[in-house]
């Protein structure tokens, strides 16, 4: 049933794209890739791995494994307004109603047998150990093997070695489950494709920094996190190129209205995943989100001759894998580069990353003159959100910035 659902989305978007074969349609191409991933996940003969957010998807792609981080499923369920049913299932089974709703949704989907059964599971201790607990639950429920990548909080040579060894070991674990040994050549090619995509991603972010920015609040929503799923593939490169081209086109045709950008905002951590009129709420005050914390390239190009170490370096460079000081320094850097006027931190319910360091993040940004709006909202569970309350906070924040 789910396979048919994704197949119909794939056919629908493909037909739309065929109507305008020369159009760029970045978001549509991205949506097509996501639907095709859903289709692969539910196809009978695919090798499936459920993973943590920072798993090396290029390596897994090179080994012919269809892989996805579980939080993505939570986000998808929220965006299609089906998460509630699954969260309720998880809560009925005893999961705390104030735990991270990405995990509650995916746990409910697992309990309701709505998720494809994986061949194995790759957990990561970053960005959060809550995700790891979901992986452990999954391993028990599906009776599948779990491999955990323990991601240290520093980028020291010892940490790089420690993680690189685990990644190499993980490749052996994957090969043991697929019956297909890692091909150094195929991995090398995948890393070259990752590099090609990364160059384009840097260009995308470079264009987004311009003033006025060619992005609208929605354009790069979830981009930095989701694109990792397509790393190491030609499809990933093509999506990135479409995004780059669309932004270049917008700049060339002066498509962006500077009056829509009186206030440039940064969004901290994850966006609201269910349908919510955030853009129009902000847009009414001439505010728009030009950068997300999770949209950045913080790593050096991958070295195909030294794959495990470069993948390890990449994972360790992600500010979310590191301590709060690195995270604050990164946010400050983004704030300066994108010349933002204010930041919004949703402080997603049940997320230690989001709520635990809220004060430190606020102080760090205020130190460089960036006001912060701290919300306390659930980005996945729409039952926990009062629209009017959020609207008042957005409006008051923009009024405050405008003085």
């Amino acid at each position, binding site marked *: 049933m789910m396979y048919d659902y994704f197949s119909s989305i794939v056919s629908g978007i493909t037909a739309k794209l065929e109507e305008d074969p020369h159009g760029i349609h970045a978001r549509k191409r991205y949506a097509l890739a996501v639907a095709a991933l859903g289709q692969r996940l539910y196809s009978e003969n695919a090798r499936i791995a459920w993973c943590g957010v920072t798993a090396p998807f290029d390596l897994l792609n090179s080994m012919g494994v269809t892989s996805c981080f579980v939080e993505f499923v939570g986000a998808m369920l929220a965006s299609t307004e089906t998460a509630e049913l699954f969260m309720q299932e998880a809560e009925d089974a005893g999961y705390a109603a104030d735990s991270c709703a990405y995990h509650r949704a995916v746990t409910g989907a697992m309990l309701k047998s709505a998720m494809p059964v994986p061949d194995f599971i790759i957990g990561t201790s970053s960005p959060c150990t809550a995700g790891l607990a979901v992986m452990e639950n999954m391993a028990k429920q599906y009776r599948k093997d779990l491999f955990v990548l323990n991601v240290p909080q520093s980028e020291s040579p010892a940490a790089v070695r420690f993680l690189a060894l685990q990644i190499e070991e993980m490749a052996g674990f994957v090969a043991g489950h697929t019956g297909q040994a890692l091909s150094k050549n195929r991995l090398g090619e995948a890393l070259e494709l990752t590099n090609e995509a990364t160059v384009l991603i840097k260009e995308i972010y470079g264009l987004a920094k311009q003033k006025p920015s060619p992005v609208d609040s929605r354009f790069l929503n979830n981009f930095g996190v989701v694109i990792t799923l397509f790393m190491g593939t030609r499809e990933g490169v093509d999506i990135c190129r479409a995004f780059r081209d669309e932004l270049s086109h917008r700049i060339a045709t002066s498509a962006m209205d500077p009056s829509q950008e009186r206030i440039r905002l940064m969004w901290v951590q994850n966006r609201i995943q269910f349908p919510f009129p955030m853009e129009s709420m902000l847009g009414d005050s001439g505010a728009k989100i030009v950068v997300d914390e999770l949209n950045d390239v913080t790593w050096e190009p991958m070295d195909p001759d030294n794959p495990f170490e470069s993948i390890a370096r990449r994972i360790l460079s992600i500010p979310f894998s590191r301590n709060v000081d690195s995270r604050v320094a990164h946010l400050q850097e983004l704030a300066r580069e994108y010349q933002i006027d204010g930041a919004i931190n949703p402080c997603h319910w049940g997320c230690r990353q989001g709520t635990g360091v809220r004060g430190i993040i606020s102080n760090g940004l205020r130190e460089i003159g960036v*006001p912060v709006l701290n919300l*306390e909202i659930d980005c996945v569970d729409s039952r926990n959100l009062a629209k009017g309350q959020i609207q008042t906070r957005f409006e*008051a924040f923009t009024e405050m910035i405008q003085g």
Partner: protein
Amino acid sequence: MYFLGIDIGSLSCDAVLIDESKNVVASSVVPTGVRNLEAIARVTKDVLEQSGISEQDIASTISTGYGRTRVANRDGAVTEITCHAKGIQEAVPGTRILIDIGGQDSKAIHIGENGNVMDFAMNDKCAAGTGRFLEAMARALEVDILDLGELDRGAQSDLVLSSMCTVFAESEVVSLIANGTEQREIARGMNRAIASRTFSLVKRVAREIDGLTISMSGGVALNSGVVRALRESLKTDTIHIPERPDTIGALGAALIARERNA
């Protein structure tokens, strides 16, 4: 020329009419009820009658509060945060920290020396510690809400009610009564619960409050028990309460209407 500010809150709907020199010429407060359009019409009619002017004499109207977009003939809608900050500057000049506790919102606003909002924090998850909370507590204690303010006189204990949830706090009150806890001790516990929630809002907008003028607006400012508990928790001798704390939002809206029309 006159300027009208209308604040449509969850419990009350307030209007303030000012003249060109910022003098308050009329004001009205009515319960919002379930039909906020009727409440808006009533306060508008009230201020027109009190001042003896006609609607055409109103040069500009700004609405605020959660129902701000319900005012049909408004010239603009501004959030209650900005309006309260503006209003308190007029009522208590020099205010740097404003605590506003209304029907279902409580907020702390840090105001800069120039009178602009520097930061604000609001209750997010629940209405505990707001006017609605006090209504529920008055019900549980079987007293009139207007008598709640003096109910804690002479209480000494360190009791603090649950400040997480209005419903839980209400049942806590019922069991305290059943256990024979004195009414004044319960009232003090309730005030301390509100103060502790508000304290954390204030700390979120200003780490240091020493030497800053602190004022309070919103209907709950009329409850002397809450104000006493707040003074205790903020370790301050003075919290300035304007003459009409319940109409500060509407006053701010009227002042903004005047500024925008300048």
